[in-house]
């Protein structure tokens, strides 16, 4: 295959071209540049490489594995033309405002529920704000209203606090109702 260069090609045209992305388990994904660019990390790589970008030999992603990247790509495909999300917080309580998700997004997270942490980490590394903040919100949603025991069971966390430590936490946080 002839080596193509990203240089000198206008952006809409470039977006339609394919780029190969290699994950840390050596899986190759052929992705439209327009879709890959939802990730700021990949977009920066494409821009930085400029002339030297070899679309066929690909971009390596040493911190993401194939199965997770596949899920991320699904998100990118759906959000390729989506506007940048706006993260807002309550000016007084500093509590972050919850996003309203579309039916597609809700279904996406239902489908990949057990991979929420991996998705959040991948989205953080790949700099996909929409996926990152939405996944964080989904994780917060899982925490909200559940007891500490349920949360530990859900996330597979070891309880390393002694009863004395827990009593101390409850004593100092007098408003806490748990």
């Amino acid at each position, binding site marked *: 295959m002839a080596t193509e260069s990203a240089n000198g090609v206008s952006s809409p045209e470039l977006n339609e071209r394919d780029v190969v992305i290699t994950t840390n388990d050596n899986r190759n994904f052929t992705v439209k540049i327009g879709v890959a660019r939802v990730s700021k990390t990949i977009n920066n790589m494409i821009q930085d490489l400029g002339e030297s970008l070899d679309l066929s030999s690909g971009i390596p992603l040493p911190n993401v594995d194939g199965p997770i990247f596949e899920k991320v790509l699904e998100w990118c495909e759906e959000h390729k033309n989506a506007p940048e999300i706006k993260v807002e917080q309550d000016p*007084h*309580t500093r509590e972050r405002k919850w996003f309203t998700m579309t039916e597609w997004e809700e279904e996406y997270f239902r489908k990949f529920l057990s991979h929420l*942490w991996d998705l959040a980490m991948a989205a953080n590394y790949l700099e996909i704000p929409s996926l990152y903040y939405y996944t964080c919100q989904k994780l*917060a949603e899982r925490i909200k209203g559940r*007891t*500490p025991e349920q949360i*530990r069971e859900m996330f597979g966390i070891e309880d390393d606090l002694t009863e004395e430590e827990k009593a101390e936490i409850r004593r100092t946080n007098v408003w*806490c109702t748990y």
Partner: protein
Amino acid sequence: MPLYKNVISKFLNEVLYEGPLIKIPTSISSELICDIFSYLGRNELEKCQLINRTWKSLIIQHSDFLPLYSFFKLSIEKIALGAQLENCIIQCSIFTSSSSLIIALTYKPTEEEPKRISAMKNYLEALRNVVFQCIEFHGLPYREEERPMERDLMLVRFMDILREYVGIQIRVVFCPLFIGYVSAVTDLFLKSYIKAHKVNIPFDNFLIWLYTSKEINYDNYTKKIKIYVDPVTYPLTEDKTFIEAIFDFIGKCKVAKPNLYRICVNSGLISLLPFFEAWLDFYSNASDPFILVNKFYFYNRRRFLDTRFNLFTSLVMESCQKYKKSIQRVYKKGTNYLYYLFEVKRLTNHILKIEFQFDLDGYEANRYDQYQEFVANQEAPAIEKSLSFSSTTLTVISMSCHLKMMSCKH
């Protein structure tokens, strides 16, 4: 299904998590966990501290950035001054909403101060991670002979104590202060307040009670001006100066966006009739009334039976006819205080908003029957839901009378 199954199922749901395992990776960044925490309320965060040591230390380490509790009000209710500045009592109440009292704190420093402060420390610790929508100081004696200066210094000192134990974690969004005529003390207090909260204090909602009407002080700290007219030391007879001072403020307001300010007057209605006349004229003839101060609040304790109020309502009605405004009246009934709201609006923007509140408190107990009669007489306007004087519906004056239960022992 037998009934007990529901009970068991409910119990199990509380104990067990029934969803899939969402295994947390071992190499998770604290930034990611904190981003998740940012979506949770403070109560949830306190709960998360009980998960494990890592989560606990993360929440403690990042508490400067994580969400806070939001309580309605910290009310400092009693500051009784003794012979010395040190010998005083401060009582605080914390409200989660406008009416529910959570806790009352008492601070009484004496020669045993360190011991007492230590006892207080637990209470004050409870104020960590709280943002109050409002801090109010109540029931403060304010007569010259009672050394108001010391009272103000006491407040400064109290804020210092709060700062010492609570640090920057307590934030106040709205703070009405009883500020005396000693501007140096005012400055001291505000500086202490700024110091206590270091940065990012929204001063937009500061509200200051001023005790003298002759000097309406305002500065960049405030967005609302409250004018307290003490009926004893400052009787409102034919006080032209008072009216002039208010209009001087309205007319020559040097602050940015004066329409965000609110003028609060605590007084009888004796000299207010000429004031309203002037005021209606002023606003009706202003080239752009939207940019002027447009919210007025009149608070009158124990004098709600004042017949002058009826004179005022008829004056408003007449003026509305004169200036071709349309009127909408809303009337609500309760049992113990009287609240009137007159609103002049264009679409959603206020041209003018006047609130009246007449309280019936313990002092008024012997006039409770009279009060009931007065309330009964106020029913009349309720029937007239809407009186339109103009087809332009440029402005609407709405009048509402809200009566609320109060603890009147009679």
